[in-house]
């Protein structure tokens, strides 16, 4: 920990600049994406969908990532997800019946504000809801039951793969959506944990640097495009909320619950900040 604090002091870590308090997502987005264009002028916009590998200085890891992509290990979990998606429920229906366009080319609008229930909904929630509507058991106990969570992650990964290449487009036109967006934004910029970091510290100011040994830091721009993703570290497909939890733990902050409203709102904010980038999920990550 001491080494980490020294490194931080050396970098003169600042919080970046939190955008103005008045809700204006379009202007937030412009400022957010401009930050990265200024910080990394040689990186083309679309490349941000490929994670830390595209940042200057990451060439060696990029070469390894390109090689693993010749036959990425997530193909195993993705096939399991595909089988779940295609297997009919006891009533004869399949997951496709619960979604617009049979589930194809719609993931770029997730997470979304559901006016009817006045809540942000993620793909994981809609998939679980589909099970419930069709009299099948939902995936539960996601904080503690890794097996359940990984199955849901594989299914969600397959769902996202049906929209691979589609560009992120989140609808924030309703007042409820704006409120959720603001909460997510606040969480993003707020320092937390013993290490007193905000998401912005590591993923904006320190993007492209190595943190505490062998944790290269990704740019926030493009964060959600790969998720559900397979980290080399975990060797399995996982949900984005699982990453939020472990990331919070890494700065010694108490992780929130998987599927909690605050993580849904964080996911909404983060995804909106990647507006225009193509979905690559599932993808290999560090």
């Amino acid at each position: 920990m001491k080494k980490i604090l020294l490194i931080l002091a050396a970098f003169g870590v600042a919080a970046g600049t939190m955008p103005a308090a008045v809700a204006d997502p379009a202007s937030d987005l412009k400022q957010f994406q401009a930050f990265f264009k200024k910080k990394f002028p040689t990186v083309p916009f679309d490349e941000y969908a490929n994670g830390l590998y595209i940042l200057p200085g990451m060439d060696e890891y990029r070469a390894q990532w390109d090689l693993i992509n010749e036959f990425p290990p997530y193909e195993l979990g993705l096939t399991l997800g595909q089988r779940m998606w295609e297997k009919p429920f006891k009533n004869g229906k399949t997951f496709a019946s619960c979604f617009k366009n049979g589930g194809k080319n719609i993931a770029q609008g997730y997470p979304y504000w559901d006016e009817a229930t006045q809540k942000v909904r993620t793909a994981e929630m809609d998939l679980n809801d589909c099970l419930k509507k069709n009299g099948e058991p939902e995936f539960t106990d996601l904080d503690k039951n890794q097996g359940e969570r990984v199955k849901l992650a594989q299914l969600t990964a397959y769902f996202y793969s049906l929209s691979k290449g589609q560009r992120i487009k989140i609808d924030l036109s309703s007042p409820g959506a704006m409120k959720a967006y603001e909460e997510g934004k606040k969480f993003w910029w707020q320092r937390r944990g013993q290490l007193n970091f905000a998401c912005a510290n590591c993923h904006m100011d320190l993007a492209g640097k190595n943190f505490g040994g062998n944790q290269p830091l990704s740019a926030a721009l493009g964060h959600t495009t790969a998720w559900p993703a397979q980290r080399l570290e975990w060797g399995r497909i996982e949900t984005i909320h699982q990453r939020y939890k472990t990331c919070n733990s890494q700065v010694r902050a108490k992780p929130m619950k998987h599927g909690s409203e605050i993580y849904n709102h964080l996911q909404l904010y983060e995804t909106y900040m990647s507006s225009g980038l193509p979905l690559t999920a599932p993808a290999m990550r560090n």
Partner: protein
Amino acid sequence: MTHLPRRLFLKNTLATAVLVGVGSTGLFRPGWALAAEWPKDAFAAKQLDEAIRAVFGPGPLSPSTAVKLRVPTQAENSAQVQIQVLAEMPDVEAIAVFVEKNPSPLVAHASFAGAQGFFSARMKMGQTSDVVAVVKAGGKLYTAKQNVKVTVGGCGG
């Protein structure tokens, strides 16, 4: 245990039947067997030299630029280090990969009867270490090595 004596030991095993079958298709090469049993001693060897000898026997090892070893200089993750070995000389019979500082250096061994002199895999490394490829071609042994840095730990959650 080397290739030649092992072939004699296999006289009364199931592997012999496979050898006979392979021999009749013209693919069988004297001196080594495709269907040999898993080299238990080689995988149990705790030292690099011991492991190499357990696989290939006592012949001299010649460093060769015809053995192209592709590994990262800094591995992104110690449990998924990619290695590719391309043996450019003719008559490649086998390729083996070793990580010198692993508790048991032998990672994998491939024997060929029709396939090219190429082998790739992903492997675990316990610490920064030399990675060594040994190729058997035309009855001779060739080697190449490269050091791979591995950072264990960091903040991976």
